[in-house]
């Protein structure tokens, strides 16, 4: 009756579980389709095809240690079961739903009736965001309401107008410019092609509903949203449940709208089986011309579970299966029950003829979940897929929703040679704990060179201590937006003396910690202290940099509010190899002191210079840049009134490698001039933002 993809004899899980599985399937034949059963790992495909209630999966304790399946089930291939399920539901719900099936299928809105009649009472609730709970970055300052992510909550302030307004939510980066900088991380291998997200935000609503529509009001350069997810957890409830599920409502590719005008983005979302009031939006602005700005998010949903989900049986898309995650089983439990290997010399077919390294090469192209699935298919692949050489680079960021402590502990045995680890965004809402992370680090961190821990809110001081102890060779550490990390935790970073790249964007690092880091890490090449509001005196930091970190190549001091010309002068005289310098929104730097001219003269290798919203940048600064920094590629002089067209033209002529020039809100530079020089210098992308 049921078609099985792999017969139980070939199944790698030869232990009692497969017998249980067979038992349960027979049991299921007679029972209601909502009965669940154990999965045979290799045959999970078959399992999903006939189970109607995937929600039941979660209740098995094995599933807690696994990547959860995500796809809805499908009975369309099994007509008898379909009839069974329909009969079951028709019988149960005939009382309340008999006359309204067409209504329910046809329309999504229904008028609320006064009395509880036979007609269903499905009221569509429309809500604006209540509170932004978490996000990976934003353009604005930490205690401001201009261009910050908190503007996404509430009613729209700008829509339907278009433009660059302060009342919108803006991310920190756009386009591909930051990826081209030397300060960016090398991309990890094995990133699945379906994972495009660069930034995210989490928005909570007042009331949990079953979502029917999500509308995002984008007011400037729309097109960045690539994924919308819904969470089963109510962030305002007092007793959070133990397991938290994230379901993808919609996923798409990054694209760019034709014009930068405002639009209402309303993709068709999937139906989910739980009520949600927590949405997560993931964005990718790499195709956009300028910063994307979001005004509000509207969540439309119904309070009662729609019956639509039961009648409309989705067809399983084979491509969906590649997104879904299976359990990563315990490596120890998967011993194949084959006997001596000699008898099975040709048991693996042609694979036995291929050299070990070749199979390793083939397998090295698989993304991590497929690697885990392949490990369960037979002993040969198990050996290959559990080989630590496959786990030199490991990026778990695409799987942030499903990574748990148990998954980490299962991966431990394979990751002993780990060199580059990306766990950014993981540990969302308690799935990974500090203890689990620490034990993983102790097992696998000995040869770690690069560690990406952006937005990891489970990190504590103990975690950083463990990192400092177990990873002596660590060269890259990214703690961007780990804003719940206590200030004293950063003192441990000073023990990583080989550190070359350190990202502390939006953290609470204090002056004493950063000074000790700079003292003991003289190899620093890339340092990001953007929006570090707890550092009191950036002049001292700058002078320490110039004294100790002379090989510094890139420095991000975005929104450091008290750097003065004295500190800047010391910095540029000490760190002569600087190529990238971001001094955006540093309002205390005055051009009249000559600091920018001194900078231009001191840093001939300068490739990126951001002087965003420094209102004092003037013609003589540009002339010095033109004269000395011919390698300049990215320049941002947003918001100055003192720069004229002539000096801009001179700069463009002297810097042939210039690719990005942001002259937004420069009052002397009008759009006609911008058009003219865009024609003359076609390689330069000139940005001129507008407010209406």
């Amino acid at each position, binding site marked *: 009756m049921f078609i099985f993809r792999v017969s139980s004899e070939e199944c790698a899980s030869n232990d009692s579980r497969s017998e249980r599985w067979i038992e349960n399937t027979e049991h299921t034949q007679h029972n209601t389709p909502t009965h669940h059963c154990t999965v045979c790992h290799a045959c999970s495909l078959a399992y999903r095809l006939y189970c109607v209630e995937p929600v039941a999966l979660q209740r098995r304790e094995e599933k807690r240690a696994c990547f959860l399946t995500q796809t809805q089930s499908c009975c369309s291939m099994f007509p008898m079961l379909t009839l069974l399920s329909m009969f079951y539901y028709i019988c149960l719900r005939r009382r309340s739903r008999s006359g309204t099936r067409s209504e329910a299928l046809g329309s999504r809105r229904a008028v609320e009736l006064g009395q509880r009649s036979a007609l269903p009472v499905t009221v569509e609730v429309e809500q604006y965001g209540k509170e932004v709970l978490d996000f990976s970055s934003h353009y604005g300052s930490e205690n401001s309401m201009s261009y910050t992510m908190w503007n996404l909550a509430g009613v729209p302030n700008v829509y339907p107008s278009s433009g*660059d307004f302060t009342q919108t939510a803006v991310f920190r980066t756009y386009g591909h410019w930051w990826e081209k900088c030397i300060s960016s991380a090398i991309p990890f291998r094995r990133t699945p092609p379906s994972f495009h997200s660069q930034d995210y935000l989490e928005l909570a609503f007042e009331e949990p509903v079953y979502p029917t529509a999500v509308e995002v009001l984008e007011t400037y350069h729309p097109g960045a949203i690539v994924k919308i997810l819904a969470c089963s957890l109510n962030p305002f409830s007092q007793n959070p449940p133990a397991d938290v599920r994230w379901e993808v409502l919609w996923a798409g590719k990054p694209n760019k709208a034709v014009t930068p005008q405002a639009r209402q983005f309303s993709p068709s979302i999937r139906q989910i089986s739980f009520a949600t009031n927590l949405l997560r939006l993931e964005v990718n602005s790499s195709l956009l011309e300028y910063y994307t700005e979001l005004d509000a998010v509207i969540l439309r949903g119904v309070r009662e579970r729609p019956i639509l989900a039961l009648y409309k049986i989705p067809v399983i898309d084979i491509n969906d299966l590649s997104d879904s995650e299976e359990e990563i089983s315990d490596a120890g439990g998967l011993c194949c029950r084959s006997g001596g290997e000699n008898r099975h010399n040709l048991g693996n077919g042609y694979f036995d003829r291929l050299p070990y390294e070749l199979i390793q090469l083939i397998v090295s192209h698989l993304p991590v979940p497929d690697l885990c699935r392949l490990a369960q298919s037979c002993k040969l692949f198990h050996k290959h897929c559990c080989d630590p050489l496959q786990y030199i680079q490991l990026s778990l960021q695409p799987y942030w929703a499903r990574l748990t402590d148990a998954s980490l502990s299962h991966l431990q045995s394979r990751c002993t040679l780990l060199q580059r680890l990306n766990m950014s965004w993981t540990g969302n809402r308690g799935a990974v704990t500090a203890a689990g992370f620490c034990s993983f680090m102790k097992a696998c961190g000995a040869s770690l060179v690069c560690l990406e821990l952006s937005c990891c809110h489970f990190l504590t001081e103990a975690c950083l201590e463990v990192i400092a102890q177990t990873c002596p060779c660590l060269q890259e550490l990214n703690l961007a937006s780990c804003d719940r990390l206590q200030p004293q935790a950063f003192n441990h970073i000073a023990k990583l003396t080989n550190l070359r790249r350190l990202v502390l964007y939006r953290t609470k690092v204090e002056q004493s910690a950063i000074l000790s880091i700079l003292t003991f890490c003289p190899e620093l090449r890339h340092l990001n202290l953007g929006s570090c509001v707890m550092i009191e005196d950036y002049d001292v930091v700058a002078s320490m940099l110039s004294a100790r970190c002379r090989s510094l190549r890139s420095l991000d001091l975005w929104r450091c509010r008290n750097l003065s010309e004295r500190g800047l002068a010391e910095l540029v005289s000490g760190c002569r190899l600087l190529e990238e310098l971001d001094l955006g929104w540093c309002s205390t730097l005055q051009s*009249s002191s000559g600091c920018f001219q001194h900078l231009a003269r001191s840093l001939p290798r300068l490739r990126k210079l951001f002087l965003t919203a420094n*209102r004092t940048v003037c013609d003589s600064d540009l002339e010095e840049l033109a004269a000395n920094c011919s390698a300049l590629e990215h320049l941002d002089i947003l918001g100055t009134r003192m720069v004229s067209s002539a000096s801009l033209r001179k700069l463009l002529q002297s810097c042939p490698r210039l690719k990005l020039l942001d002259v937004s*809100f420069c009052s002397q530079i009008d759009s006609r001039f911008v058009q003219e020089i865009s024609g003359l210098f076609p390689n330069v992308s000139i940005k001129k933002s507008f407010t209406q």
Partner: protein
Amino acid sequence: MFFHYVLGFPLRSDVTAAGHVISRPVCACLRNTGAGEGECERRDGRRARQVHAHRTPSGMLSVLSYGRIVARAVLGGLSQTDGRDYSLITASCGFGKDFRKGILKKGMCYGDDACFIARHKSADVLGVADGVGGWRDYGVDPSQFSATLMRTCERLVKEGRFTPSSPVGILTSGYYELLQNKVPLLGSSTACIVVLDRRSHRLHTCNLGDSGFLVVRGGEVVHRSDEQQHYFNTPFQLSIAPPGAEGVVLSDSPEAADSSSFDVQLGDIILTATDGLFDNMPDYMILQELKKLKISSQRREEDCVNSPAWVVMQTGKESPQKVVTC
């Protein structure tokens, strides 16, 4: 008839006055009375809808259109038994020095002055800002600074980023937010902010410069603000100067504002205005006009709009002229 008199004489300063009356908690809904201007704010559950129906009259010169230009007047108060929380019934009006040319700005901006009225569940907040006109000589529009400051303070209040007992905090945050704008703002203005704490029935005020407020109870002025001036015609002011001119341009910190707080009662009238009102109208005239306002609980606010309540006095004339609004 009166109209021609008004036309003949230039005004020295803009006049903006916002009158506010302590009242029982009721939503202030000022409807259009057909005069062509109105502002209606409705709160509907979660969402507040604001409908601004602010029609700009063409430059026609007629008594009717003049009446349209001059907005509604101060409203009287209600004396009701108290709900637990106090709230304000508000109205604002004003006109700029160039009102004759028919120039009218959007929102609550009158000439170089701007004002705002904002409500939060813990407090009602009113603010007035007077842009310093001297910037015009340097090519800077003085109204931009004051209008943006008031819009920013309004937004701060609506989002709850303030403490009711500290209007200076609102001013400081508002000023800081102005600096966070990508657009390079220039200019300066005075500011006066008044916060009614609903629970504690206290009014917290702060005043920087020569705008100010009056609190009138029972026909008598019970509180007033003090003017802050450096020297003649140079009040204390918040400013953003062009780079290089910071030493030359007067710039006071928000902390230099005068703060005060006191209790208020039902039926009090609070008048916040720029110096255009206080310089041109002596106290007794203001009190006279306010006395004429009688609001009973049956009358609706829109009827008060029609009541004769607005006086414009011409500087230089000995006896004041009266113009009746319609």
